[in-house]
C-alpha cells in the first residue's frame, strides 16, 4: 500500500527547548496516527509541522513521497486541519460559520440544518456562536468533517469539551473515514474507545 504521509528524522525546537528529535512514522490509507503526551510535550507543534504551518528544525515531511514544500498546493487541497482553536468566529452563527468554510473549500453540506440537527444543534443554527457552550462550539467546528471530501484530517484535541455521546458518534465517523481510505492524525488526552483496524500510537516524552 502506498504511503500517504511520512516523517523522516523530524525534529522541532521551541524557545531553545528540543521538543522531539529524530521522529519517524509512515501512514498509509486507512491508518490513524494517535499522538499522546503530556502538556507541553510538543503535540500541537508536531501537528502544525504536519499541516505545513511551520517548518521543522531538521528532517522532512513527505506527502505521497514528495517533500511538503514541493507539493504545498496539492497538499493543502487534500488537507483538513482543525487546530487548537476551533476556527469558529463567535460573532457569526453556526450556519454562517459553516457557509464561510464551505465557500473556502467549495464543499457544501447537502442540508446544513439537518447536519447541525444531527450534531445536537437543532434550533441553535441562527444564534451567534458566542452564546453556545464550549462543547456546542466544538460541534459547529467539527461539523465540516461530515461533508468534506478531503482525505487527510489533522485534528488537534478533537474530543475537547464534547460529551460521551458525541465522542462515540465522532469515533464512528472516524472509522467510516478510515474505511473509505482516509488518513487521520489526531492528538488526545483521552483513550480512544472505538477499535481502529490500523492504529499507530505515538507517545511524545516531555523533555527538558
Amino acid at each position: 500500500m502506498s504511503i500517504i504521509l511520512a516523517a523522516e528524522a523530524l525534529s522541532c525546537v521551541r524557545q531553545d527547548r528540543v521538543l522531539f528529535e529524530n521522529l519517524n512514522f509512515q501512514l498509509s490509507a486507512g491508518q490513524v496516527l494517535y499522538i499522546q503526551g503530556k502538556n507541553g510535550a510538543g503535540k500541537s507543534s508536531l501537528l502544525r509541522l504536519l499541516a505545513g504551518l511551520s517548518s521543522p528544525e531538521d528532517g522532512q515531511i513527505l506527502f505521497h513521497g514528495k517533500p511538503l514544500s514541493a507539493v504545498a498546493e496539492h497538499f493543502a487541497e487534500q488537507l483538513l486541519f482543525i487546530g487548537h482553536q476551533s476556527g469558529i468566529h463567535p460573532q457569526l452563527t453556526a450556519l454562517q460559520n459553516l457557509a464561510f468554510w464551505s465557500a473556502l473549500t467549495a464543499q457544501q453540506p447537502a442540508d446544513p440544518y439537518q447536519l447541525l440537527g444531527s450534531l445536537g444543534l437543532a434550533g441553535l443554527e441562527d444564534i451567534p456562536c458566542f452564546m453556545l457552550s464550549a462543547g456546542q462550539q466544538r460541534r459547529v467546528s467539527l461539523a465540516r468533517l461530515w461533508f468534506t471530501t478531503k482525505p487527510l484530517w489533522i485534528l488537534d484535541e478533537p474530543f475537547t469539551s464534547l460529551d460521551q455521546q458525541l465522542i462515540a458518534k465522532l469515533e464512528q465517523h472516524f472509522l467510516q473515514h478510515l474505511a473509505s481510505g482516509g488518513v487521520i492524525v489526531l492528538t488526545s488526552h483521552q483513550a480512544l474507545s472505538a477499535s481502529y483496524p490500523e492504529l499507530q500510537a505515538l507517545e511524545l516524552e516531555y523533555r527538558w
Partner: protein
Amino acid sequence: MVMWRSLIKRELQLLGRQKADWLNPLVFFLLVLSLFPLGIGPEPGMLKQIAPGLVWIAALLSVLLSAERLFKDDYRYGVIEQLVAGREGLFSYVTAKICCHWLSTGVPLILVSPLIAVLLGLNFDSWQVLVVTLVLGTPVLSLLSVLGAALTMAADKGGILQALIILPLYIPLLIFASGAMEAAATALPYTGQLAVLLAFLLFALALVPLAVRQALRMNVG
C-alpha cells in the same frame, strides 16, 4: 468569484454585528472636525485656510483607529491558521477584508464630506476637490491600514506599533492630498497632485494584497 462573494458576505455580516468597528471611526472623524471651529474660532478665512490639512489628518487618524482590530478576532479564534493551512482561500480573504474595510471606513467619510464642507466653510469647488482626493486617497489608507493590522495582529497591544509602522507611509498621501486641496483653493492647477494620488493607489493596489498575505503567513508560522 463565488468564493469571493461569500467572503465579502461574511465580512459584511461581521460588520453588521460589530457596528462599533465602523461607527467609532466615523464618529471620531466628525467629532474632531466639529471641535476645530469651536477651538480655533469661527473665522471663515482661517478655517478655510487650514481645512485641507485638518480633513486629511482627521481621516488618517480615524482610519488608523479602525484598523487595529481587523485581524485580531480571526487570529485569536484560529480562522487565520486554517486559512493559511488551506492556502487557496487566503488571497480572496485578504482582498475581501480590504474591500470591506474601505466600504466601512472610506466610503462613510466620503458620504459625510458635505457636512464637513459646511462645518469648515468650504465652497462647492473646494468640496468637489475634497471628494476627489478622498475617493483616490481613502482606498490607499485602507490598504496600508490592513497591511499594518496584518503585521501586528499577533502582538498583544499592537495599536501603537501599528501606528509607528503605518504613519510614515501615510505622510506622502497627506502631503499630496492636502496639497491638491490647497492648490484648488488658490485656483492653481491641481491635476498633478491628483495624478500622484492615483499612482499611489494603483501601486498600493498591486502590491499590498500580496504583502498582507505574506504577513499573515509569517504571523501564523
